[in-house]
């Protein structure tokens, strides 16, 4: 086990968020059961007022999770010096089998939060709150993610054993590089680049299609999500190499460091925003047939998809800049 303030803070955040989500889901369930928009009873009024608490709790939880995601990676970066062979955050995440799943869960929570908040936003604009049951039902699906994250993260931190001098024998021969420093191998850079270009073009095309035709919002969400996954792959297998100017350094986190001009932030922030908005747009797209949302959804979707496309373009520009501005030539490596 490792104890430092950042780990303490992360554990506290996960615990508190799990508690808040539990509370929100509990209230949400009550609302689902007793909701009757037409009633003027005091119970209905109480329910309506609860919805304010629930959305505040959920919004706050997601915000905290977002910052915790950053802190999680920062921390992994910093404690890498305490593990033999862990050169950076990648090595620390490999320290035990719970590192990567925790990270994936944090990202998943961030995206489901974005979807939920989009639904909530749209719902609050319609006078009859048509999505009340849907969105509080959805909380039931997010809650397990949050709890799983709490459990996995706790196991991850408990499982960490820093390689330090122990009382008895001075040097301890922790076998170096066994799994810990294993690089993310990734796909062939050429393939990754090709996939990235194709999926990006597909996402922009479906997005443009929506802006003109008001159709296939779901297609945009799907292509965007695919682009997101491919983009992560491409960063690991290719873009990062150009930033490090080193043909074998695949770490997706070191690009966040000062030494690489904080390139990581310029890549990840637009990418995450674009994907979150695209998922939000995809989630509300099938609801356009609800009478009270007929006017609202197209307007909201248009805005979401427009902004999402802008950020996606920004991501591609930054990636292109990183590749073209690099001194590394990989000609002999991949064609």
């Amino acid at each position: 086990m490792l104890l430092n303030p950042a780990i303490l803070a992360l554990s506290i955040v996960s615990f508190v968020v799990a508690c808040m989500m539990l509370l929100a889901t509990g209230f949400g369930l009550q609302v689902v059961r007793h909701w009757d928009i037409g009633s003027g009873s005091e119970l209905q009024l109480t329910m309506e007022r609860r919805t304010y608490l629930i959305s505040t709790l959920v919004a706050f939880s997601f915000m905290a999770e977002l910052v915790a995601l950053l802190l999680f990676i920062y921390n992994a970066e910093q404690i890498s010096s305490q593990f033999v062979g862990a050169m950076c955050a990648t090595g620390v995440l490999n320290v035990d089998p719970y590192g990567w799943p925790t990270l994936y869960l944090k990202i998943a929570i961030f995206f489901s939060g974005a979807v939920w908040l989009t639904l909530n936003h749209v719902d609050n604009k319609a006078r009859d709150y048509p999505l009340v049951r849907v969105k509080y039902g959805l909380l039931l699906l997010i809650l397990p993610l949050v709890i799983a994250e709490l459990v996995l993260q706790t196991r991850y931190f408990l499982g960490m054993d820093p390689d330090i001098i122990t009382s008895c024998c001075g040097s301890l021969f922790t076998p170096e590089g066994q799994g810990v420093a294993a690089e993310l191998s990734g796909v062939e850079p050429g393939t990754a680049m090709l996939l990235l270009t194709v999926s990006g073009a597909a996402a922009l095309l479906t997005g443009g299609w929506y802006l003109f035709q008001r159709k296939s919002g779901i297609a945009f969400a799907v292509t965007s999500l695919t682009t997101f996954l491919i983009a992560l792959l491409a960063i690991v297998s290719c873009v990062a190499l150009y930033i490090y100017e080193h043909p074998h350094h695949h770490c997706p986190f070191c690009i966040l460091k000062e030494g690489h001009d904080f390139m990581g932030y310029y890549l990840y922030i637009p990418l995450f925003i674009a994907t979150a908005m695209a998922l939000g747009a995809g989630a509300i797209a099938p609801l356009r047939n609800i009478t009270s949302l007929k006017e609202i959804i197209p307007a909201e979707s248009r805005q979401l998809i427009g902004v999402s496309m802008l950020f996606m373009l920004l991501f591609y520009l930054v990636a292109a800049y990183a590749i073209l501005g690099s001194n590394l030539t990989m000609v002999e490596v991949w064609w």
Partner: protein
Amino acid sequence: MKAFIRKQRYLIDFTLSSLLRRPGKNLGLLVVYSLIVFLLASVMLFTHALRSEARLVLADSPEIILQRMVAGRHDLIPGSYLEKMGRIRGVIGKHGRLWGYFYDPAVQANYTLMVPRDRQLAEDEAVIGAAIARTRGVSRGDFLTFRSTDGNAYSFRVSAILASDSELVSADLILVSEQRFRTFFGIPEGYYTDLVLNVRNPKELRKVAEKLTLRLPDTRPILRDEILRTYDAIFNWRQGIVFVLLTGTILAFVIFAWDKASGLSAEERREIGILKAIGWETSDVIRMKFWEGAIISLSAFLLGYLTAYGHVFYANAGLFEPVLKGWSVLYPEFRLTPFIDGLQLATLFFFTVFPYTVATIVPIWRAAITDPDTVMR
């Protein structure tokens, strides 16, 4: 977007007015809050700076130190071990090191006596650390007299005092000649405290250490990387322990904040009723109250951090000195070099602003759902 920003500014206007109307209560909260941030931030900045400095400074320690173990105790190591280990690939230099401790009953301090390899000292000559000079009140040319293990008193002429710039590592050192060291402690010729091995290529370190334990089974090698790593872990752990202890304080503060936020006076409740009656929506009230929390917690965070910065790096962490000094008589005077990174700030932020905000969510909501028609009743 423009309307959104304007609206937030109006909300801030109102929040500030309402905060300023109850100056005593809010100022008290702010002071307590800032004090907590100050404490946590001081601990954090101090240990982090110390850790960073240790890592930088000790990066030039010997790569491998070989100690002989006898019955589980550290013992003198014969110089013959240098030949006994034979040639190991990657080792570019090896030699014995002589050092030991001496307890000075005059000031009840522990000194570290050492034989330097970088200078030749005469038999009665000694170079001392700045903290010893300070504690004993000696300067260049003065004499220090110690009673050795064989009962004789030996006098040393202080020929130089180590630079106070490096006090963090050399405060308690007394450098003496090899001859005098051996007679003073009664260490026979050919024996050393431990051995030092220089290895140029860091990738070969572990291989070398492994070979050493095979060839000299009664020794233990201590690697520089391990020392650095362990110092890192120690400071981290210490920081963690202090934070765990201070969690109690934070918890007490959270309860205080919760109580303050939920104990709305009738006056405040009426005010919220009025706001809602004249057209404020529940979420507007929540946002207004959120700004209230943000103003207080941001102020406390920034004020606490800034005073902590001044305390640690300009006042030399005066408040911690007694704690760190503990029982020691010799204490280095050092000025810490500030090392701050995003992780420190983000962690501090999470430790202080996050609990406060969580504690106030439910009370805020409770206040915000006040019936708008209460003002008519």
